C-alpha cells in the first residue's frame, strides 16, 4: 500500500467497505430495492443550477440532479440511487507566467476531480486515469465554444469537483455481471460528463468569458425494454441503476443555437442506431440548456440590480481616505 506523506493515511492493514448481510443471504433482496424508471423514455430529470457559489473565483456554478423521492429508501440503508452534485469554479483569464511560450489564444485547462465520497467505492485524492480522461473530454467540449483569440498570452482554469456522481449500475451487478449490465462499462460517467459540460458552461458564462454559444451536455442510451423482452428502446437522461441492461450510451456537448456538436462520446454495442442515439442526446442537451438560460438570465439581472444598489450605497457610505 502506497503511503502519501502529505496526507493522513488509512490503517496499513487496509479496510473494506461494509457488506450488508441481506444482500448475500437473500438473493432477491437487492432486486426488490432496485429503483424503476418512472419517467417517460424522453422525459428528463429535473436539474438545479446556481451560479456564483465561489465568490472569490471569476466564475462559478453548482449543478444538482436531486434524487427522486423513493419509498424503498426508508426500509434499507442501501441507498436507492445517488444524485449528481457538481461544483465548478473558473479561475482567470489571467496572464501566463513569463516562462511560458507565447500563445496567440486563451489556454484552457480543465480538471475534473471526484471527491473521496463521490462514489460507492472510496476514491483517492490523487487524480486517476478516469478523471484525467474525463478532463480531456470536457476540454474538447469547451474549446469549441470559447473565443480564445480575444485573450492572447492568457490562461484560464476550469476546475470541476464532483461531490457526488451517478453510479455505474445497480448494486452488485458490477461483480456478478449476470446480464451484462455491469460489464465494466462505466455508464455513470456519461451522466457525470454531461453534468460537467453543463455546469462549466454556466461557470464560464458567469465569468464573462466570450463564447460563440452556450454549450450544454446531454445523454441518451439504448436499453432493453423491460416490458417487451428483447426489444430495445431509446431513453434520454438514463439513470444507470434503473436499467438492467444498457446496450449503448452517448453523451454530447451541443450548441443549440448553431446546431453544432463539440463533443461526442459513445460507448457500447451500437448496431445501426447511431444517428438516433446522437439525436436523443442533443434533445437531452436542449433540455438542460433551457434551465441554464433561465439561471444565467436571473444571475445577470441580479448583478445589474446589485450594481444599481451599489451605486446608491456608495453615495451614502463615506469614502475611506488614504492616510500615510
Amino acid at each position, binding site marked *: 500500500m502506497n503511503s502519501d506523506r502529505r496526507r493522513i493515511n488509512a490503517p496499513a*492493514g487496509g479496510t473494506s467497505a*461494509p457488506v450488508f448481510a441481506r444482500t448475500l443471504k437473500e438473493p432477491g433482496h437487492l432486486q426488490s430495492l432496485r429503483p424503476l424508471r418512472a419517467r417517460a423514455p424522453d422525459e428528463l430529470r429535473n436539474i438545479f443550477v446556481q451560479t456564483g457559489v465561489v*465568490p472569490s473565483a471569476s466564475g462559478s456554478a453548482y449543478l444538482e440532479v436531486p434524487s427522486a423521492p423513493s419509498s424503498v429508501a426508508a426500509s434499507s440503508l442501501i441507498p436507492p440511487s*445517488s444524485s449528481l452534485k457538481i461544483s465548478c469554479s473558473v479561475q482567470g483569464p489571467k496572464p501566463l507566467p513569463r516562462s511560458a511560450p507565447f500563445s496567440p489564444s486563451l489556454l484552457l485547462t480543465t480538471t475534473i*476531480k471526484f*471527491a473521496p*465520497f463521490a*462514489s460507492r467505492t472510496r476514491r483517492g485524492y490523487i487524480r486517476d486515469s478516469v478523471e484525467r480522461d474525463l478532463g480531456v473530454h470536457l476540454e474538447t467540449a469547451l474549446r469549441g465554444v470559447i473565443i480564445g483569440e480575444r485573450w492572447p498570452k492568457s490562461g484560464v482554469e476550469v476546475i470541476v469537483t464532483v461531490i457526488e456522481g451517478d453510479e455505474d449500475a445497480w448494486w452488485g451487478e458490477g461483480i456478478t455481471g449476470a446480464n451484462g449490465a455491469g460489464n465494466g462499462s462505466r455508464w455513470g460517467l456519461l451522466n457525470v460528463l454531461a453534468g460537467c459540460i453543463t455546469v462549466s458552461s454556466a461557470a464560464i458564462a458567469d465569468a464573462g468569458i466570450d463564447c460563440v454559444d452556450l454549450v450544454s451536455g446531454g445523454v441518451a442510451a439504448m436499453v432493453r425494454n423491460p416490458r417487451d423482452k428483447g426489444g430495445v428502446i431509446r431513453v434520454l437522461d438514463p439513470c444507470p441503476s434503473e436499467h438492467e441492461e444498457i446496450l449503448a450510451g452517448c453523451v454530447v456537448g451541443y450548441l443549440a443555437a448553431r446546431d453544432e456538436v463539440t463533443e461526442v462520446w459513445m460507448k457500447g454495442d451500437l448496431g445501426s442506431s447511431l444517428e438516433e442515439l446522437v439525436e436523443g442526446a442533443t434533445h437531452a442537451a436542449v433540455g438542460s440548456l433551457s434551465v441554464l438560460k433561465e439561471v444565467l438570465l436571473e444571475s445577470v439581472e441580479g448583478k445589474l440590480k446589485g450594481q444599481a444598489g451599489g451605486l446608491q450605497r456608495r453615495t451614502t457610505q463615506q469614502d475611506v481616505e488614504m492616510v500615510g
Partner: protein
Amino acid sequence: MASANTATSTPALSFPRPIFAAISPHSFLQAHLSNPTAPNKAFRANGRSAHEFRTPGIKTGALTHCHGSAVVRVGNTSVVCGVRGEILRAEDIADPPSSTPDTGNEVHEDGGDDELDSLRLLVPNLELNTGSTPSNIPGSAPSSTAQTLITRIRSLLLSTRILRARDLRIVYTPPPATPDEVPDRQVKAYWTLYVDIMFISLDGNAFDSAWLAVLAALRDTRLPKAFFDQEMETILCSDIPSEAAPLKLRGCPVASTFAVFDGWKDGDATEGTEDWVLSDPDAFEEGVCQESVCVVVDCVGGRGSGQEQIRRIEKSGGGVVGREEMRGLVKRSVDRWTICEGVLKGVGSA
C-alpha cells in the same frame, strides 16, 4: 458623485474601495477600524464589527454514499464534509492491542481510547485545491497550509477524545461451549472513519469552518449494525435503518479563531499604537494580520453542565494578546459556542 467633489476640495487622495484595498490593505483596514467620530461604531471592511462572527449555516445528510455528512457555510466559506465508515478486520492489524478493554460495563467508558490513535481508526483528510481561492489550483500537492490544517484537526479530534473507541469496536461473543462458561468477548474488527473535507469556497478562517463541518458530520453519522457472522467467517452489516446507531460524542467543542491587527503608530506619541482583535477573520484580514489565536471551548460534557472548559488554545505570530486579552477572547469564544451549539442542536437528534 460626492467623492469626486470632496477630492477636488480637499487635498486628500481618494480611491475607489477595491483599489485602496488592493494597493494598501493595511491602511485600508486601519482606516475602517479607527473611526475617530464614533469609536464604538467602527466596522471592518466587510461590514462586521471587530467582535462579530459570521453566522454559520449547516445542512446535513445530503451525501448518499456517506454514513454522515454536512455542508457548512460560514459567510463566503463553504465546506463539505463526509464521514464514511469502513471495516478494519482484527487479523489485518499487524500489532493488535493486547487487552480487550471492552468489558461492556460503564466503568471503562472513559478509558481505553488509545486504539483510536494507535490503530489510526480516524482518517481525516482535507482538500483545498478545488479552485476554492484563486491560488488553490488543483494539480499541486497539498500545500503546507493544508497539511497544517489537517494535522490540527486530527490532533483536536484525538485530544478532545470526542469519539469513543467502543462505538467503533465490532465485538463478537461466541456461543458458550458449556452452559457455565463465561463467554469470552472478542474484538473482531473496528470501524475506520474516513473524514473527508472538501472546501468548495474559501474566504478565511478555514479551521473553524472545517472543524464545524467535521463536528456536524460526526453528529449526523449513523453506522450500520455490524456483526461477526460465524457461518461465513466475516463481518456483515444489517441494512435495517432502525438498527443503525449514532456515534456517542463526548461534548461539543467549538473552535473560534481570532486575528490580531496591529495598528500603525502614527508617529506622534500621543496616539501610540492601537490593536484590534478581530473575530472570525476573512481572507482579506488574514492576509493583513500576523498574530492569530484559536480557542476551543466546550460548555457541555465537562464536570458540570454550563461550566465552560477550555479544550485548546493555539496562538502564534506575535505578542499582543496577553493574559488579560486572552480572558476576553475566551469569553468571546463562549458566546460563539452558544451560537454554534444552537445551530448544531438540530443535527443528529433525529
